[in-house]
């Protein structure tokens, strides 16, 4: 049995609106935009980071530096023990000391990825602050972590999967709820 798309929650228009709203919130909250840097968590967090960068440039004319974080070496949740996590490169070619770091990921779920990302950032320097942006917050937190900017709250059941598709790698923008193969309807 294959994974099944249970519902399409957002299309490209809704996604674009959320990006615009979140960007305005970031600008509103960060009076000193010149002190802001964006760090995207591989893989989709990086594309989200670049979109936010582009929108801040469009609205305020300021180019915010974007870095790439790979958290494989900081994970505690090897979700599928038969699958080996491929390490990719962390590419942050600016200092994060005393900067306001906007950490960006696609889906916030247990919070363990963000815990790993924050540990990794703190090994790289001492930021003035870390803010968190996620496109989807689907609940079920296992750690005391919350996002500062959220594209959409999407309460789901634990066994479902939420997928943000982005045109940079998935050919189109949409948010899907996936019913994994082999699970029964509740």
């Amino acid at each position, binding site marked *: 049995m294959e994974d099944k798309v249970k519902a399409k929650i957002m299309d490209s228009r809704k996604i674009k609106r959320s990006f615009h709203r979140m960007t305005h919130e970031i600008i509103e909250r960060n009076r000193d935009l010149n002190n802001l840097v964006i760090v995207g968590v591989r893989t989709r967090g990086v594309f989200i980071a670049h979109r936010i960068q582009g929108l801040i440039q469009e609205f305020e004319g300021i180019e915010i530096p974007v870095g790439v974080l790979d958290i494989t070496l900081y*994970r505690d949740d090897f979700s599928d023990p038969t699958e*080996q996590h491929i*390490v990719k490169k962390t590419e942050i070619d600016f200092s994060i000391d005393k900067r306001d770091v906007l950490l960006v990921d696609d889906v916030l779920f247990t919070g363990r990825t963000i815990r790993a990302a924050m540990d990794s950032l703190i*090994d790289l320097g001492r930021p003035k602050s870390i803010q968190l942006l996620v496109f989807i917050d689907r609940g079920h937190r296992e750690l005391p972590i919350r996002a500062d900017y959220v594209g959409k709250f999407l309460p789901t059941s634990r066994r479902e999967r939420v997928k943000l598709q982005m045109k940079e790698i998935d050919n189109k923008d949409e948010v899907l709820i996936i019913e994994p193969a082999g699970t029964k309807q509740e």
Partner: protein
Amino acid sequence: MAFNHKHLLGIQSLSAQDIRTILDTAESLSEISSREVKKVPILRGKTIINLFYEASTRTRSSFELAAKRLSADISNFSKATSAVVKGETLKDTILNLEAMNIDAIIMRHASSGSPHFVSSFCSSHVINAGDGTHEHPTQALLDALTIQQEKQTFKDLKVVIVGDILHSRVARSDLYLLKKLGAKVVLVGPPSLVPPAFKKYGAQIDYNFDRAIEDADVVMMLRIQLERQKRIYFPSLSEYHELFSLTPQRFSRAKHDAIIMHPGPINRDVEISTDMADSAKSVILKQVENGIAVRMAVLYLLLGGKEREITD
């Protein structure tokens, strides 16, 4: 991309894809060594033994730093200061170390095949750091990473390996690896040190360095291993130097963008002239730097993550 090996005993047992996985992982990890805090937590709680029955500075400290940068605990063991001098056998030494709940053994030994023997009875991961005249897989992998960074591809590259091929585990591992990735390998040296049997592994053999170096992309010089030579293989070091050392005149016959490699330690003005060893074409220190990234990659791929299904 899965790397399903429990041990790293040699290049011969790896596939081309395994080699690429190690090189890609090494590329990703290399950035850690340039950080201010050169440490990531992935191997926290793992215990590794550096078991060196032969002298080494580069390989031993490279493995040690690689393990430490991944947060593993590593303990060094050398033959001179151990119970080996009291007559303990290799097997007993390993069983005693294993009783201390270790996770991996990095091993160098003068007897070819000793890591294979150890892997037959021990439950830890075994990493070969050089066994006799057999293999030195991490050296070949760091050589490959260096070549990849300089030349981007291995396909149809002409690699000339010069010197004491007979006693060289580096030459063997490099030959196996480079053939798996599609390079052309020419082995050069006096006939007494370059056995024709290497042809069956796909190498070309040439006893004339001046001819062999024509159009070479990579020139890899090896040290004359006087400690392994139990009889006379060439009349004198000065004759060897005359025929097989890398000098600027010889090097001018190679491709204009050729690079010079050497696994170290170098014997200046024996197999390589000082000005060649220190020239801009030399990537000898780059090899040393890449050694840490490659060894981090090997340790991560063998010990990182939870237990997996192991196919070998």
